[in-house]
């Protein structure tokens, strides 16, 4: 007698310990194998694009912190780069070097969280995450020293940065950067040859090169599939053309590659910070920008390489004090495009590992 089975709907709902924020997936399951999935977002849609049309260009900087709230410095930098391109403002050198140092520290912090939460989802409940939090608290102390905030900095301004660094910043940064490789070595000892991690991440969620390009992914997801594309090398902004660093790429595009790329990018960020600390000049930290900024009529698209991918701002100006249109190119939303293709046919536990490796932040998906 044949056994009659049916598929059923399971909701990995907006309140869930493994979804990174308020994200919902409706799974159609056959046993434990996923037949189909529908991602539902919008639970954090705050209407930032509409609200920014009601405020001036300098006031809109506060919204950008809350986009990808784990990487506020790079969001600020992207918006500043876009407005400076639109209005034709030249940023002084010392400000550019400060921006690079802050952005690379932010990249290290965001990747620490990305790897920590991936291991959390896989099942190493909190152990690697708390170790990585120890380093992240040191980075947050450095940011606290500079601008007084731990999470939403609002440090960069259109035309430069808001405050100069205090004297104790560079020695503290040097001490942190000198000890960080040893801690990354400690994580490697815990994780690199760990059998459970290898079995759960190797050959899971393979994203081919053509699919990654067609789905408009960017950042570590694109680089893990073998495409060597990084905005810091392809269209260098700020002073990145003066540093020597490499772009790590993966070969297969599975979860293990996406995890390895983050560890290697942290090591490259350490190199960039060392070079920036050696080269930083004295000087102004802010260009001469009028109090009420009225960029000329036109449009511009400014982009940077954020920790999660290419973050860009498309601005249209009609000559007034407020932007006519502000559109944000969200790396997390576009990195989620191949989710359905990656997750169909695998078990639900693997789906959580795949989703964790894409490393999204809901503030940026929903805006």
């Amino acid at each position: 007698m044949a056994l009659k089975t049916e598929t059923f709907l399971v909701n990995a709902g907006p309140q869930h310990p493994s979804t990174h924020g308020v994200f919902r997936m409706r799974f159609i399951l056959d046993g434990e194998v996923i037949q189909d999935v529908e991602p539902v977002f919008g639970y954090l849609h705050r209407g930032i694009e509409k609200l920014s049309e009601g405020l001036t260009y300098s006031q809109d900087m506060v919204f950008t912190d809350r986009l990808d709230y784990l990487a506020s410095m790079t969001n600020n930098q992207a918006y500043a780069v876009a407005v400076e391109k639109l209005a034709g403002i030249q940023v002084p050198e010392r400000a550019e070097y400060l921006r690079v140092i802050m952005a690379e520290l932010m990249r290290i912090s965001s990747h620490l969280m990305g790897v920590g939460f991936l291991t959390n989802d896989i099942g190493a409940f909190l152990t690697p995450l708390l170790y990585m939090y120890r380093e992240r608290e040191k980075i947050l102390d450095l940011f606290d020293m500079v601008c007084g905030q731990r999470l939403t900095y609002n440090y960069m301004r259109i035309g430069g940065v808001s405050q100069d660094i205090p004297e104790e910043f560079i020695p503290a940064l040097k001490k942190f950067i000198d000890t960080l490789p040893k801690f990354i070595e400690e994580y490697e000892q815990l994780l690199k040859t760990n059998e459970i991690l290898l079995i759960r991440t190797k050959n899971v969620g393979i994203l081919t090169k053509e699919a990654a390009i067609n789905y408009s992914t960017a950042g570590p997801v694109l680089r893990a599939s073998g495409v060597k594309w990084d905005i810091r090398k392809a269209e260098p902004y700020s002073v990145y053309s003066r540093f020597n660093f490499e772009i790590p790429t993966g070969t297969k595009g599975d979860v293990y590659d996406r995890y390895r790329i983050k560890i290697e990018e942290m090591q490259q960020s350490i190199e960039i910070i060392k070079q920036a600390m050696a080269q930083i000049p004295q000087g102004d930290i802010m260009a001469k920008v009028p109090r009420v900024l009225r960029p000329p009529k036109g449009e511009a698209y400014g982009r940077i390489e954020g920790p999660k991918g290419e973050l860009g701002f498309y601005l249209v100006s009609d000559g007034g004090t407020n932007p006519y249109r502000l559109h944000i190119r969200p790396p997390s939303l576009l990195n989620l495009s191949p989710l359905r293709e990656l997750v169909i046919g695998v078990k639900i536990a693997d789906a959580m590992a795949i989703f964790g490796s894409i490393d999204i932040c809901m503030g940026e998906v929903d805006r």
Partner: protein
Amino acid sequence: MTVELQAAEIVTKLEAVLPGCTVESGGNMVVIKDESVLQAATFLKNTAGLDFNYLNFLTATDYTTYFELVYDLVSLEHNHKLVLKTRLANREKPELASVFSVWKGADFQEREIYDLFGITFTGHPNLKRIFLWEGFQGYPLRKDFKQ
């Protein structure tokens, strides 16, 4: 360094395949008619030498008399980019062909434009609201939206 392709050479190539499709061009930006968007997209992706295989972003703006859609195209191999635009004058029922069959990354972005502007994309596999809930009245990013 990413090269922004000049509009003039793209216009000559496009006009050779789809005569009469260009409305305006200047700098690095080409504005084409809305009927020819899908064919132009396929041509730009598949021609050797252009190879625009990466859709960077897709968005829309409401200039009160018309909608303007912006497609930012990049070629990863040659490291050049182009901005393709099209305009829709019909404000009651704006409609356009979807480019999902050319670049799958247009999936969520077209749904977002439908949700916030009300522009329908024909040929999209699953066109429904993405950020706001089913039953929300109005399209918030239009200039005449009242709360």
